[in-house]
């Protein structure tokens, strides 16, 4: 195996003048080179792939990559949303406009709504750009056998990646096998081979040996996706008795070079009269990709900070105010219940009004926020073999992006067969196994577990059919539990699983099955509470506690479900306080493409996190990967507001913003 390395544009916007591979071809250890772009092509962001090389060691590949001489003609670049929206000035592309009208929605009668309002808040709110920062970077190992390709890819979708390889390389999809046994996080950024996957395959073909091409951290920040920014100028009204009356929002944001930036607004709460107009702004920076609950953290933040400002205007407690304006209680709309229950658990009654009155530099505060997600699944298929020695294998072409899918597959099958989890061998992460969807949209659990259940039941029926004659009963009289097959109501009349399986004979039980309606559903709700400490002399925010109230239908496995909630909250703490993709305003190049100045919480920055899962078995399985990451940042920002009395309307809550907001508040506030 040899190693690939991609040469990327250092410029955010340029024309490629020439690419000279000759020096790299002669460099020590080099086995293949490749020009990805050609003279005259336009690069649209720093990190845009231009050429590549493969060499016998990773170090040599890196050294050789620097010998590829690319000449560029630099073009003016757009480095910020504000710059992109200027009528005159730099363009992100020589052929395409800087902005594009996005969605527009209008409901009710805005004028009437504002007339009903006793108070109006008018402010601009925003969230920033963060990248996915998967600990395992994007990349692949590609090996050819004639015109057959095997690719080990860090991916959220093995079958989907196979389609990508086949179509990009012009080979039959039946010639592609993609394998992902384990992977270290995707968060929505790993559904396809991407340019690096295809470059890896092409280098492997050219070199005639397998190539490993994993991106480094800088490439990750530049070219593997991000969460778009979100801005909105909002005017909102509330009646004297605390009912939302009107919402008028003009929003914009950037998904980078030519990509969209939409998000839901207003989020969740019921504004009977509302209007929203969105504009996508394009800038010369890496494109967005789906990132854990696409759009929701942005829309949630913009709406939830506004909610606390409105609550203060009508002098209502934020929890009470939200209960008053949240959708009514329903299986997929549990907010009003979670607000009340969560407030009790969290000790919300100890919350002071906006602005901690206690003396000294440390102010404490509490905040609350809510979110929703869909999380429905379908479409997964599976295969189960039961062997005559009693061993069981369950195959499903899903993949485990670190969420515990493999565990769920084993748990559901084992429970169906009445076996310990160790009695079932779950096989996933390979296109040799039956089709399953990509792991995204929180759809995996709700797609895969019903398929496993149905297929396992089919297999069990087949086994019962073999065992029934021996026990002198009909198959429908049998049950499987505790490692035994026995007659219902007469548990002593039965066989151990092993003995029962001996009756299978030389042909294993081998059955297929697929997802069926009725075992899963859609729509989750969650509410989160945060308590923070703010040092008003330094602007440093420390999070003390988070409480997350969450449902996901039937909880298949408490440990992995809670783990999703913990992970989501931690990621959102990073969104709230630390992560920030910073582009140099002059050159448009990223100044922090690393893990040093691209800040990420360490152990000691993580507070006590309480997860309260509401088990709703009657609803079947619903995904939980995305929802818990949505509302944490808003709850934290509202807690900072409660502590300091100063409203910070943009993320992240960097000390410079906290200090500025406090100063502004002292100078008479922003209202």
């Amino acid at each position, binding site marked *: 195996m040899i190693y690939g390395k991609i040469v990327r544009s*250092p410029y955010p916007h340029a024309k490629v003048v020439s690419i000279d591979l000759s020096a790299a071809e002669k460099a020590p250890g080099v086995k293949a080179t490749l020009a990805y772009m050609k003279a005259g092509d336009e690069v649209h962001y*720093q990190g845009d792939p231009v050429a590549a090389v493969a060499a016998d060691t990773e*170090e040599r590949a*890196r*050294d050789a990559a*620097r010998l590829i001489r690319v000449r560029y003609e630099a073009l003016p670049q757009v480095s910020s949303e504000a710059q992109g929206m200027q009528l005159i000035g730099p363009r992100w592309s020589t052929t395409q406009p800087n902005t594009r009208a996005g969605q527009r929605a209008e409901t009710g009668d805005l004028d009437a709504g504002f007339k009903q309002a006793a108070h109006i808040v008018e402010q601009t709110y925003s969230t920033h750009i963060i990248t996915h920062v998967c600990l395992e970077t994007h990349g692949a190992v590609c090996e050819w056998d004639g015109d057959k390709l095997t690719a080990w890819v860090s991916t959220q979708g093995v079958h989907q990646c196979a389609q990508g390889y086949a179509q990009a390389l012009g080979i039959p999809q039946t010639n592609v096998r993609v394998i992902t046994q384990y992977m270290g996080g995707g968060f929505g950024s790993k559904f396809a081979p991407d340019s690096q996957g295809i470059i890896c395959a092409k280098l492997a073909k050219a070199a005639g040996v397998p190539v490993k091409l994993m991106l480094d951290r800088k490439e990750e920040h530049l070219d593997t996706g991000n969460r778009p920014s979100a801005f909105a100028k909002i005017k909102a009204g509330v009646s004297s008795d605390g009912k939302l009356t009107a919402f008028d929002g003009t929003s914009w944001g950037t998904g980078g070079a030519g990509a969209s930036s939409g998000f839901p607004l207003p989020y969740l709460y019921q504004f009977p009269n509302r209007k929203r107009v969105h504009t996508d702004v394009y800038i010369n920076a890496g494109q967005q990709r789906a990132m854990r609950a696409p759009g929701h953290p942005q829309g949630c933040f913009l709406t939830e900070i506004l909610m606390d400002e409105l609550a203060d205007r009508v002098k209502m407690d934020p929890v009470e105010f939200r209960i008053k304006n949240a959708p009514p209680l329903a299986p997929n709309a549990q907010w009003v219940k979670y607000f009340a229950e969560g407030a009790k658990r969290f000790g919300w009654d100890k919350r002071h009004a906006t602005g901690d009155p206690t003396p*000294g*530099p*440390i102010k404490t505060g509490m905040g609350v926020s809510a979110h929703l997600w869909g999380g429905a699944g379908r479409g997964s298929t599976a295969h189960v073999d039961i062997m005559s020695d009693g061993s069981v294998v369950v195959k499903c072409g899903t993949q485990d992006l670190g969420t515990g899918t493999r565990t769920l597959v084993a748990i559901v099958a084992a429970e169906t067969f009445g076996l310990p989890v160790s009695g079932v061998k779950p096989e996933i992460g390979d296109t040799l196994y039956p089709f399953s969807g990509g792991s995204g949209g929180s759809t995996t659990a709700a797609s895969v577990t019903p398929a496993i259940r149905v297929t396992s039941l089919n297999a069990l029926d087949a086994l019962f059919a073999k065992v029934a004659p021996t026990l002198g009963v009909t198959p429908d009289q049998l049950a499987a539990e505790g490692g035994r097959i026995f007659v219902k109501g007469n548990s002593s009349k039965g066989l151990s699983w092993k003995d029962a399986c001996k009756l299978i004979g030389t042909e294993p039980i081998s059955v297929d099955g697929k997802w069926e309606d009725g075992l899963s559903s859609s729509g989750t709700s969650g509410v989160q509470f945060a308590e923070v400490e703010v*040092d008003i*002399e*330094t*602007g*440093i925010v420390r999070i003390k506690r988070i409480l997350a109230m969450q449902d996901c239908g039937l909880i298949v496995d408490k440990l992995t479900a809670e783990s999703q909630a913990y992970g989501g909250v931690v990621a959102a703490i990073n969104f709230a*306080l*630390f992560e920030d993709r*910073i582009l*140099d*305003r*002059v*050159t448009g*190049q*990223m*100044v*922090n*493409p*690393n893990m*040093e*100045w691209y*800040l990420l*919480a*360490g*152990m*000691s*920055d993580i507070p006590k996190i309480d997860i309260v899962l509401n088990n709703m078995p009657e609803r079947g399985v619903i995904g939980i990967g995305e929802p818990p990451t949505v509302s944490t940042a808003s709850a934290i920002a509202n807690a900072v507001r409660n502590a300091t009395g100063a409203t910070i309307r943009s993320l992240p809550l*960097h*000390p*410079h913003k906290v*200090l*500025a907001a406090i100063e502004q508040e002292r100078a008479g506030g922003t209202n």
Partner: protein
Amino acid sequence: MKAFAYVNPTSEKEAVAALKTDGIAMVIGGGQDLLSRMKDYIDSPDRVVNVKGLDATVTATSDGGVKIGSAVKIVDLAEHAAVMSLYPSVAAAAIEVGTPQIRNQGTVGGNINQRPRCWYFRNEEFVCYKKGGSRCFAVNGENQYHAIFGNDGPSHIVHPSSLAVPFVAYGAKFRVLGPNGEREIAAADYFTMPTLANVLKENVLDDEDILTHVILPAPGNVKHGHYEVRYKQSHDWPLAFTTVVLVMNGVNGTSGANGTSGSTIRSARVVLGAVAPVPWRSRPAEDALAGKALNEATAALAGEAAISEAKPMSGNAYKIQIAKTAVKRAVMRAAGIKTV
């Protein structure tokens, strides 16, 4: 990374000799800074000379101070009994550096001589003054973590070393060995403000010099305080920090003969870190402290005085408030007043 020769000398003299070459030779301690610069193609030495084999001990000196070998690990400095009792601010600074991994690998020599963490310096795309270019990108760019003192340019870095600050505050001397023998330099004179002529370095070391020891004088009748403001709790850099060393009137800073002068400050050293291209000694803060009673009001005065010379850049005025707080709280700690 460019292929390089590795030299493993067994003595100081051999180390210095090994630095003589036609190409570029660089010293490696724990290697955490040097190797990352090499991997990122910021530096590409032909020869790397290991100095971890040099003196790695902390020893008592005849005048009641200590002598610290440059190969001493940061963690060992932080946990050294004599350092903890005589120079608590050195121990306090050491224990806050980076992470446990960084402290276990990092050396005193490497920490003092590490290059700037300015993100323009650390990214190859930006050819700034410190890399032989002719501009400082921070001036019109992203300067939220850059200097608020000593901002006359050409470079606007903040000096990265946490240890340098208490070393300057305690009046340490640095022993340097070069081709022409050894010399001792006051820590305060070791670090250099940038000029067009010397902007490629942050201190007085010549290419063939090594830092062999840090010599701390006996502290005398002093009170110490150290305070760091960090955004994250670990794996991060301070936004601003301060060491204060206060020489007190009276014995051990306790009550004097008439019971009043004992808690007054005779003279002070106030040094700030992460705010200037060098460990920044604040004379206004020192003047504000001299002759005063050591209490919270004095601490607040010192904080105000310290920032009187501040000259922020376009995006880092917030650091002034943070530096003020760091000075105030460091003095409060010296006074034994509880801080947050």
